[in-house]
């Protein structure tokens, strides 16, 4: 037989060495599952592989020599071992080393994946919280001012006060309903907007005029709820007080490619108010909301043309 060993000896040697290797691979893999070195990772791999290889080699010899009953065979084997150990060591080291590296890679990527999952979960949560807050932002001011208007009307014009209470309740009911929804059709959003504008007209007197233009084919488009109202509120705020005459706020909607494009236009006085480039006035929260929803920063644009300020918002359609 090769190297002067019997089949029995070779087979035993092979079984014992391979079992030992398999056991140490299992040990490493198991070990790394619980402890993954963060620093000095490569030294760790090298040292643990070298150490284990040496141990396997020693165990191999220590176990095999007593197992072989035939004393002559045992001497033969011992001689063979002393000649072959460097080669054996190399092979064992390679196997154990590969296993270590594979385990490290495997568990690192698993950990990474878990981290990523956790991060995206946390992001999602904070995003939802932020979206909720952004949606809420403008309501209290509007609400308390409207109540104040009602309070003022009760004395002199009770009929109008009652009407305004009705409008305000409709508005609030809509508002509550929409908190649940992620998308609403434009037709619904426009109705809601008209309700809002009616209330604003009471608050601001006869000086506020509004024009709403919308193509038939737009009405079914979907938008995030309560997105238009703050834009219109903004337009009213900055449009209404630059002149003492009445002011017209216009809202136009049309389909453009795969977007619904909505323009809100208000007049302003370029001498006293200077809208900033990009997102002027109080539009940053809308910009942020659109970014959180669509991961795009270019959906809200503002444009200044002489004394007209136009806010354009584009909502991607499915």
């Amino acid at each position, binding site marked *: 037989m090769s190297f002067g060993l019997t089949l029995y000896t070779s087979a035993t040697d092979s079984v014992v060495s391979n079992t030992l290797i398999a056991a140490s691979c299992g040990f490493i893999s198991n070990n790394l599952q619980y402890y993954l070195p963060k620093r000095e990772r490569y030294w760790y791999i090298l040292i643990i592989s070298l150490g284990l290889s040496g141990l396997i080699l020693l165990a191999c010899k220590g176990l095999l020599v007593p197992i072989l009953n035939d004393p002559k065979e045992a001497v033969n084997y011992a001689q063979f071992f002393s000649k072959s150990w460097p080669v054996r060591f190399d092979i064992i080291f390679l196997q154990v080393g590969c296993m270590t590296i594979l385990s490290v890679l495997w568990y690192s990527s698993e950990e990474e994946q878990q981290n990523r999952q956790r991060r995206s979960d946390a992001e999602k949560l904070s995003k939802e919280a932020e979206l909720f807050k952004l949606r809420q932002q403008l309501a209290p001011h509007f609400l308390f001012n409207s109540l104040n208007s009602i309070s003022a009307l009760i004395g002199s014009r009770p009929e109008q006060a009652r009407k305004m209470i009705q409008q305000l309740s409709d508005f609030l009911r809509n508002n509550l309903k929409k908190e649940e929804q992620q998308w609403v059709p434009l037709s619904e959003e426009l109705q809601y907007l008209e309700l809002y504008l009616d209330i604003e007209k009471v608050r*601001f007197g006869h000086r506020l005029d509004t024009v709403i233009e919308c193509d038939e084919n737009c009405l079914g488009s979907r938008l995030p709820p309560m997105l238009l109202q703050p834009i219109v509120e903004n337009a009213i705020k900055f449009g209404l007080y630059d002149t003492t005459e009445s002011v017209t706020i216009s809202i136009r909607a049309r389909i453009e490619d795969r977007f619904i494009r909505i323009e809100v236009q208000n007049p302003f006085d370029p001498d006293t108010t200077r809208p900033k480039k990009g997102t002027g006035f109080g539009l940053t929260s809308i910009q942020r909301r659109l970014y959180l929803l669509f991961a795009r920063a270019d959906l809200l644009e503002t444009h200044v043309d002489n004394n007209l300020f136009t806010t354009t918002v584009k909502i991607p359609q499915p």
Partner: protein
Amino acid sequence: MSNTNTSSGHPGNTPSGHPGSGSAPSGDASASTGSPIKVILIDDEPLARMIVLEYLQSYPGITVLQECGDGFEGIKAIQQHHPDLIFLDIQMPKINGFEMLELVETPPAVIFTTAFDEYAIRAFEAHAVDYLLKPFSKERFDKALRKWLDHHASTRSAAPAGAPGSGPTPSASGSPGNLSAPAASSTDAIASDAADRTRELLETAAQSPAQQHRIVVKTGGKIKIIPTEDIHYLEASDDYVKIHTHNGAFLKNRTMGYFEKALDPAQFVRVHRSYILNIQQVTRIDPYEKDGHLCILQSGAHVPVSKTGYVRLKEVLGL
């Protein structure tokens, strides 16, 4: 409303909030002195002004001189009429109530009204300033007004008894010359105390996010809103601060400390006792003389940087 004349001459003695109907509090605050109290209403909503007007009907001693729909009108009206008291809304288009007050040289007494503004309310609470939350009841309104009337009356009683109808308080009129000398000094003290309070309030209010992004200045009778990103740097100049921008320099009568607090600290650094710098404008920092440095701005301006200023600047720039 029936105008029951209770305990004349001492409106402060009327208990607040009668148990029964909201019977009108004695509106004779100035009846004893004869000259009416001059009031201006500043609110962007006509109905909000209407309700104040309605509530004021039970105070015959108070005359509303003008109603203003925005801060610009408000400034003009205050300078024209020198009112004793103004009712001021915070959230208004273009410039808010605080910014408006900043631009008035001798601000009159103010009762603030607001619907909802966390920052404003925090500022009021911090400086113990009375304010009305819309919608407010007649009782709440009376309480605030009566408190002011008491204060106003005590300011007046500081004047000698022989000179009752001596007109508006110096804080409002800006012309204390028509008061006799000893009275002027004591009322001046109270007035300047009120002015201090107002200044402190405005300082706190200026730190709100709504105001952190802009500075309102008056230049040649016109009001200009400067977005803070347009500012190159600020320079102390006697009692004023000179604000250098793309479109030239503007003066504002505030201290460097005020701007240091009011401006966004991630954007503006006090690099020197007399300079605050917009870090976006910095192109180069050169050593200068023995301990100092010199900042070169995009506009080409040179701004001195002190030793401690340099430490602060490096920190903000992350060097």
